[in-house]
Structure formats: structure tokens, C-alpha cells
């Protein structure tokens, strides 16, 4: 019995309990609190001796093909689990007088993400993610913020995209399993596969093919350009907790999968020329195209949703660079982006509930009446445009630096040009974020739309996230130490 198993089980059990009629808010909050505590405990434990997989434990499910419910955590997964438990706590906390299904789905999504991040068996990694997708879809379709027809359409779009993506992913994983199962038995155990991959590495060309399939599969889940068009409407429509959890946490699964499965098993796959160029093109699409799209958005939720698509580009950049610095930067960025976007979506949800609209030309001067709210929002906004001192900066700068480690004075490779263009994306994100900030909070207070600060207890979840941003922004090494031996 490993602590990780409790961490995974807790939210799911809580969800079940709520379904069976336990007091929703109490149960959920309790579960998430304990969960966060456990995660922190595990993190501290691990930080003491950050090496390899910890808290491992495996229960055999099937003999042949060998599938076992194996858990284990290293720095990367711990960071993501920390993210999950933080966001889940905040998401559950900020729910106000909503039906139980809000709590249930939040817990399910959170628990699914936990499972995906903590299991070390390809089968379960995949399975848990899918498990988390269902409530997302249901919630968008049932409690989304649009008229029934529209939100159903949005939900369908998301589901079809994600479903298709998952199937491509499944194909890719199946291919991996078939290639790397040593002996005459299929095995899904990541460690076994990795060992086999090290024993008998594939020719680079083949690695490239498999990697590309995985990239498409995972990429669709992360809204990699041009498979992104599900994301923005989905987030804009999704109920607040779902938007927070999916954009903040669940979306990171694809990247996690690439880092955890694709890169170790196919070390040369990402570096093969055509794959890398394709990836660079796609992520530029994310950054530049989506950047412009975001600039064009004129509602807060659109801006946020598109921006969260855009920022994936930087994480992919980290993967494309593939150096240790860049990868760790990418992980850091995943964490940072998760927290910041969750914070922003949470606040955005509050605004929508109180004001009923998010259109820039209808808003203005909110800072006058809701200063605390403004400060919290500023934390999120400035974090997401990569202001130093807030979490995202460290990640971004590491990604950039990591892409420049093998740079010879004089010649710039495609990667370097991509980085330079990506840097322009930073400017663009400043453009739209400040525009949003100025239109909503600055200017003369619009008397028609009036909003006050949330009560303190409702401020706490956001404060939690903001504090996380600040702390990890000032001391990124706290997280980096966890990854000493990883990657």
C-alpha cells in the first residue's frame, strides 16, 4: 500500500461518496485538503532524497499481456501532482451553491489526473486520463455557459477531438508496446518497456515515425496547432471548476505523456529532422497564430481560452529542444501555467456569475470597487505574460535558454529562429493581457456593471494559487530540486 495509491483513491472515493449522498461540500473539501496534505508530505519526503522512482508499488491485474496497477513518482510527476491537488482544492473550494455534480466531476477529473500522473503502467496512465475526460465532457454539455444547443455542440467538438486524439494515441502506445515488449509477452509496464528500449533501441527513422504518431495523439489532447480548435470554445463554455481543472491540470497530461513515455523510449525520435521541423512549425502555429487570434478576442473568456492554447507552444518548444534545461523548464512551465490559468479561469467564472458578461466594451473600472479581486487577477495575468518573480518566467526563460545551449556563435538553427519568433509571442501575450486588464479594471468605474470583492473565505482559494505563483516564481529551485535526478 503506497501513499500514492491513497492520493489517487481519495478523490475518487470522495466522488463516489458524494454520489451516494454524502454532504457534498464538506466531503469534497475534506478530501481535497487531506489530498493536498498527503501530496505535500510525499513531496517533502522525496525532496529529502530526490532520486529515481519513489513510493513504488505494483498490483498485477493481468498476466498476459502483463498489465499491473503500478504506482510510482519522481520529480516530474510529483510536481504535476502538486499542481493537481492545488488546483483541485481551489476548484472545489470556489464552487458556490451548485448541484453536487459540480463537486463530483471536479473530484473525478482531479482523481483521474492524479492517477494518470502517478501510475507507471502505460495502460493505466492512458485509462485514468480517459476517465477524467468523461466528466469534463458531461459538465460542458450539461452545465456549460451557453444555450443547450450551442454548449452541446461545443462539448461534442471537444469529445470528438479528444476521442480521436485518444485513439491515435492508443494506436501509438500499442505500437510502442508491440515494439518494446521483450520476450513473448506483451507488457505495459513503463519500466520494462524503457529497459527494453535501452537494450534494443530502434533505428532513428522508426523512432521518428512512432514519436510522430504519439505527438499527434498527445498533441491533440494538449491542443497542439492545428488540432486545437476544440480547446478555446470548450474552456470558454465549460463551468468554472471544469475549466480550471481541465485547462490547468488535465491538459498537461499530453505533455506529461510525451516527457514520460515518448522521450525516454524514443530518445532520437524527437531529434530527427523532419519530426523536429514539423513540431517547430506546429508550435509556432500555437504561439503566433493563436497569439494573434487571442489579440483579436474581445471577451475575457475567449482571451483566456485562446491564451491557454497559445502558451502550450512554449512547453512544446521545451520538448522540441529536448535538452535537460529545456525539459525541466517545460515541466516548470506546465506547473506555472496550470496554476496561473486556473487562477484566471476561477476569477473569470466569478466575474461572469456576478456581472453576466465578459465583453470588454461593456466592462471597466472594476478595480475601484474590487481591489483585492484586481490584485488577484493581476497575479494571474502578469504570471501568464511571464513577468519575473511569478512562476511562469522561470519556466519560459529555462525553455529559451535550454534551446540555446548548443548554439555556435554565427549560425542559427531552425530551433533558434523558432525561439526568437516565440519571444515575439511573449510580446503578443503582453498585448492581449494588458488589453484585458486595462479594459476590465482600469478606466472609470462603469456604474451599470458593479462588482465587489468576494468574501474572504471565497478569496482564499485564489489567494492560495496566487501565493503559489509568487513563491515558485521567487524560488523556482524549490521545484527544480525535485527534478535533480529526473530527465
Amino acid at each position, binding site marked *: 500500500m503506497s501513499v500514492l495509491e491513497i492520493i489517487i483513491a481519495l478523490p475518487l472515493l470522495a466522488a463516489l461518496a458524494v454520489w451516494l449522498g454524502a454532504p457534498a461540500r464538506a466531503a469534497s473539501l475534506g478530501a481535497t485538503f487531506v489530498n493536498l496534505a498527503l501530496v505535500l508530505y510525499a513531496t517533502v519526503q522525496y525532496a529529502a532524497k530526490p532520486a529515481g522512482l519513489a513510493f513504488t508499488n505494483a498490483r498485477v491485474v493481468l498476466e498476459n499481456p502483463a498489465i499491473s496497477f503500478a504506482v510510482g513518482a519522481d520529480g516530474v510527476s510529483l510536481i504535476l501532482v502538486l499542481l493537481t491537488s492545488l488546483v483541485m482544492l481551489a476548484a472545489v473550494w470556489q464552487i458556490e451553491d451548485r448541484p453536487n455534480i459540480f463537486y463530483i466531476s471536479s473530484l473525478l477529473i482531479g482523481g483521474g489526473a492524479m492517477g494518470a500522473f502517478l501510475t507507471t503502467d502505460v495502460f493505466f496512465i492512458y485509462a485514468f486520463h480517459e476517465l477524467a475526460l468523461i466528466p469534463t465532457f458531461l459538465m460542458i454539455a450539461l452545465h456549460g455557459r451557453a444555450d443547450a444547443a450551442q454548449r452541446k455542440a461545443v462539448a461534442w467538438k471537444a469529445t470528438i477531438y479528444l476521442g480521436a486524439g485518444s485513439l491515435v494515441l492508443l494506436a501509438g502506445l500499442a505500437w510502442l508496446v508491440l515494439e518494446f515488449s521483450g520476450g513473448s509477452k506483451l507488457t505495459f509496464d513503463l519500466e520494462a518497456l524503457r529497459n527494453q528500449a535501452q537494450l534494443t533501441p530502434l533505428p532513428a527513422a522508426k523512432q521518428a515515425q512512432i514519436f510522430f504518431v504519439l505527438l499527434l495523439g498527445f498533441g491533440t489532447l494538449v491542443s497542439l496547432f*492545428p488540432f486545437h480548435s476544440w480547446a478555446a470554445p470548450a474552456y470558454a463554455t465549460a463551468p468554472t471548476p471544469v475549466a480550471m481543472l481541465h485547462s490547468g491540470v488535465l491538459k498537461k497530461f499530453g505533455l506529461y505523456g510525451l516527457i514520460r513515455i515518448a522521450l525516454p523510449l524514443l530518445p532520437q525520435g524527437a531529434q530527427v529532422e523532419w519530426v523536429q521541423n514539423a513540431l517547430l512549425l506546429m508550435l509556432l502555429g500555437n504561439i503566433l497564430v493563436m497569439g494573434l487570434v487571442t489579440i483579436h478576442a474581445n471577451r475575457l473568456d475567449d482571451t483566456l481560452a485562446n491564451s491557454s492554447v497559445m502558451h502550450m507552444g512554449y512547453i512544446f518548444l521545451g520538448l522540441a529542444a529536448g535538452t535537460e534545461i529545456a525539459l525541466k523548464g517545460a515541466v516548470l512551465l506546465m506547473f506555472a501555467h496550470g496554476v496561473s490559468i486556473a487562477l484566471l479561469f476561477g476569477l473569470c467564472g466569478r466575474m461572469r456569475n456576478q456581472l453576466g458578461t465578459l465583453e470588454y466594451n461593456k466592462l471597466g473600472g472594476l478595480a475601484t470597487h474590487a481591489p483585492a479581486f484586481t490584485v488577484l487577477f493581476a497575479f494571474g495575468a502578469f504570471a501568464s505574460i511571464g513577468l519575473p518573480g511569478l512562476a511562469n518566467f522561470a519556466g519560459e526563460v529555462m525553455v529559451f535558454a535550454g534551446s540555446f545551449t548548443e548554439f555556435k556563435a554565427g549560425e542559427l538553427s531552425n530551433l533558434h529562429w523558432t525561439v526568437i519568433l516565440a519571444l515575439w509571442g511573449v510580446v503578443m501575450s503582453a498585448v492581449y493581457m494588458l488589453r484585458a486588464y486595462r479594459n476590465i479594471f482600469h478606466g472609470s468605474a462603469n456604474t451599470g456593471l458593479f462588482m465587489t470583492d468576494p468574501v474572504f473565505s471565497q478569496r482564499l482559494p485564489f489567494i492560495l494559487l496566487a501565493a503559489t505563483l509568487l513563491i515558485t516564481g521567487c524560488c523556482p529551485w524549490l521545484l527544480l530540486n525535485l527534478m535533480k535526478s529526473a530527465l
Partner: protein
Amino acid sequence: MHASIILLLPFFSALLILLGHRQLKGASVLISVGSSIISFIACLFFLAADDDNRLLLPFIEVGTFNAGIDALIDKQSRGMMFIVSFVGMLVHIFSLGYMKDDEAKPRFFGSLSLFMFSMTGIVLAGNLFMMFIFWELVGLSSYLLIGHWYQKASAAEACKKAFLTNRIGDFGFMIGILLLFGANGGNVNLIDLETAFTSGPLRPDAPGYSAGFTTAAALCIFLGAVGKSAQFPLHVWLPDAMEGPTPVSALIHAATMVAAGVYMLVRVSFLVTASPLAAEIIAGIGCGTALLAALMATQQNDIKRVLAYSTLSQLGYMVMAVGAVAMAAQHGHQGAHAADPGHPAMFHLYTHAFFKAMLFLGSGAVIYACHHEQDIWKMGGLRKHMPVTFWTFAIGTAALMGVPFLSGFWSKEAVLGAAYDSGCKVLFLAGAATAALTAFYMTRLLIVAFFGKPRTDSAHHATEAPMVMILPLAILSIFSVLSGYDVLAAPLQAMKPPHVEGHQTVLFASLAALVLGVGAAIYLYRGKDKDPVSIKLFANKFYFDEIYTVIVRVCQDRLAWIVTALERVFVDGIVARLPAAIIARLGAATRMLQGGHLQGYTFLLGGGVIAVIYLVVFVLPRLGH
């Protein structure tokens, strides 16, 4: 030790104030001012500290990449540190009076402390990443301070503009840092970089040296300075930044932050020196900015804007000096104007900091006295109403014009000297012209605002500002007189360049320019109630804002619109809608099979059998295995 106090004290006060100002209302002001005073005292000790470069805080250490918060303590940082903390303290004190009845005082002082923190960071920065971090943070604090009165649309726009313009600069800065980072094997520590460029792998005669790279790196870094120090073409934000409270303008947009660009350039002057092309471009842009800004200044009517443009042109001066010195160095005039011990740009920065801060504070006092009236044509005759302000203001003006034996005189001469040595006459002449223009518009300002008779009753009832505001003015005026002399310069490590002889031309030029400018101004403006000359081009700042608006609208909004449309149509259409449609068609088609007619089914069944037999018996065997 001192370094960390100076750095962290304002940080914590800022944090405390910004997060908890609801709880500690008035106290926040005291905290901020107190911290500024303490750090000034600490800074005095700091002046005596000896050179070193030690890590204060860890930030990122991964593999070859470690960007810590480290302090590079040397002559330059010490001197700059003094300016920052000294002017900063005075501005804090001044603000006590100026912001007395502002309901958002805590926010103001909190941001001020935040600025002190970030500026300190820039000054102490020992590596480029750290410098970038604080580079951005000063951007933030200036954003907050410019937008202090965010209810005013103009202020809201101004702070946005400032931040974005700076972002563009930072874009270049970051690229430059990355280039250096990559080229120097992940080490961007200033000292190591210097060694790398002078004697290390990046020196001109090293194998695999690429001039293009050096120039590119230099220019990218310079772009950062362009943004921060508001050089052409990114200068547009500074005048608008005057929307912020006047003390802010004095501290940030005159004395310190905008000077950070110059400071940074001096820090990396080895890089500039390494690339002739870069040096020329920098010098060119510098003097261009100086000239243009001076021209614009001559037609401004808002007292703060006049000062703002003057700041622009002075910054141009400094940048030009950086370039010029580098060019001179390339021509072999080593020693004379080398970056160490004294750099003309730094020296001018130093003197300029005092008198320009004083001028701004003076204007602040004036505005305060005139109930936030900023149009100089609505003032007049203030000399009698507020004598102290007048005299300090006059001293400042004189210093700025470079009246002999005032601090400005020495520094300006040093800069012109550098321009002269650079071997490029254009620089020198432009510099001289700028000096003349400076004299002209400052005199104009002085005459219009302080002489003659009051033109409005707000000017009529103007009274002397309170003590807290007078005091800093007085102190600053002293400095702007003396800071040119070794008396102050030496202990304060102003990096005063040795006053080299043999620059008669320079001396005469500056004097001539002075006389010319002042004469013209007096002749034109004496006792006038409205502007006798009006040159639309200058008044409208060469229509830069208009041009930029167009560019932004075309290159950003239109483009965004188009791209969005394309994204919706193509990406979404091809990736999502098309396959969906195909599948739907197929589904409908297959559904047709289920007509519900028994005959149809039997036919299908029979046909199926035929087909299967055909396939299995006649086709597959042919295909072989």
C-alpha cells in the same frame, strides 16, 4: 551584506504594503519612506564596500544554466546605487507632501518601494539574466505608477503603452542575452563575458569568431536599452508616462529607471566596443534621439512634457556618448575615455540625475501650487509667489543648459568631447546643436512659467510649497551645483572622466551653443502671453504617435482579424468539420441499406453471397498469398 539589505528591504516593504495595506493604513507610508531612508544609509556604507561579486539568492541552477541573484559590486554599481537610493529617498519624502490627500496613497508607496527594489536589482545585477529579471520588474513598477490614477483613461493607456513598448525592448534584450548565453557556454556573468570578449573565446581574433554575431548580440542588447531609455524609435512612451504623479516622473522617468538603459550599456560596453557597426548605430540613434527630442521640446506647453522631452534628449546624449566612446576606443583613443575609471555617459547620467530630478520635483511643486495646472502658458510670474522653487528650478535649468561651473557643464562637455574623439563630426555637431536647443527650450520654459505676470488666477494664488517638498529641492539643487566637482564626485564615485585638455573646440562649442540658445529664447519669449512661434511638426512630435497607431492597427489588429478568420475557416474546417461531414454522409448512406423491405434484405443477402463467393473463390486465390 549591505547589498542584500538594500535589495530586500524595499522588497519586503513593497510586499507588506501591497498585500496588507487594508490592515495597516497610514503605517504603509511610513514603512515605505522608512525603508527608503534606511536603505540610503545602508548605501552610504555601501559606498565604502570593496569590489566583489557574490551570490545573494539562488534562483535557477540546472546544468550549465545558473542564473542566481548575485551582486556585482564595483565603482559603477556603487555610484549608481548612491544615485538611486539618494534620489529615491528624496522623492519618497517629497511624495509625503505631494500625495498627501490621495486616497490610494498605500498603493502609491507600495509601488514606489517595489520600484526601489527592482532598480536596486538592476544596479547590482552581476549577470544578464538577473538584470533582465529586474529590468522587467522596473517595467512593472513603472506600469503601476504611471497607472496610479487608472480611472483616467489617458493614464490607463499611458501605462499600457509604456509596458508594451518596454516589452518590445525586452524582446531584443532577451534575444541578446540568449545569444551571449549560447555563445559563451551558458555563462552570462558580466565579468566572465568581459573576459570572454577581451581575451576569451569571443575575442575578435579567436577561431570561429563571427563579426555578425557580435554585432547582432550588441544590437539586441541595445534594443533593450532603447526600450528602457526611450530612445528613438521606442521613445513614444516616455512623454505619455508623464500621466503618472510627478514624483514618479522625477524618480523613474528622469533620474533612475530611464537611465538604467544607459547604465546597462555601460556595463556591457565591452560588447559595444567589440563591434564597430553596433557602436556607430548606437551613437547614431543616440544623437538622433537627442536632436529630435530637443526639437520636440521647443514646442511643448505642458511643463512636464517639456521636461520629459528634455529627458529624452539628455538620454540620447548619454547613449550617444556610449557609442562615441566605443568608436573612439576602436580608433585607438584608449585611456582617454575608457569605460573605467570614468565614463562620460555615466558621468552625465550622474549629474543629470540630480538636476533633472530636481527640475521635475520643482515642476511638481509648481503644479501642486497651481492646483494641478500643467500648461506653462497658464502660469507666469511664479517667481514672486514661490521663490525657493524658482531659485532651485533656475539652478536646475542652468545646470541642464550647461552653464559653466555647474555640474551639467562638466558632464556635457565630457560627452561632447567623446563625440569629438569618435572622429565622426556629425555626432559632434548634432551634440552641439542639441545643447543649443536645450538652452533654448529651458530658457523658454523658465521665462514663460516664472517671469512675466500671472496669466490665470490659479497661478495668481499660487503659494510656496510645504517644507517636505522644499527640502528635497534644496538638497538636490546643492548637488546639481556641486556634483560636477571632485569634492562630491570623488567620494560618490561618480565615474567622472578625467578632464582632458586640448578640447578647446568642445569648450567653445558648448559655450556658443549656450549663448545662442539662451539669447534666442530671451529674445523670442520675453513678456509674451502666447507662443510666438508655432511649428506644427515639432508640436506634434513629428507625428510619431499617429504613425505608430496606424502601424499597430494594420500590423496587429487587421492581421489578427485575418488570421482569426483563416484559423476558423481552414484549420477548423479542414481538421474538424470536413471529416465529420464525411462520416455523417457515410452514416446516412449506410443507413439507406436498412430500407425495412424484406425483398431488399433478401436481395442484399443473395448479393452478399454472390459477392463473397466471387471474392473467395475467384479473386483471392488469384491474389495468391
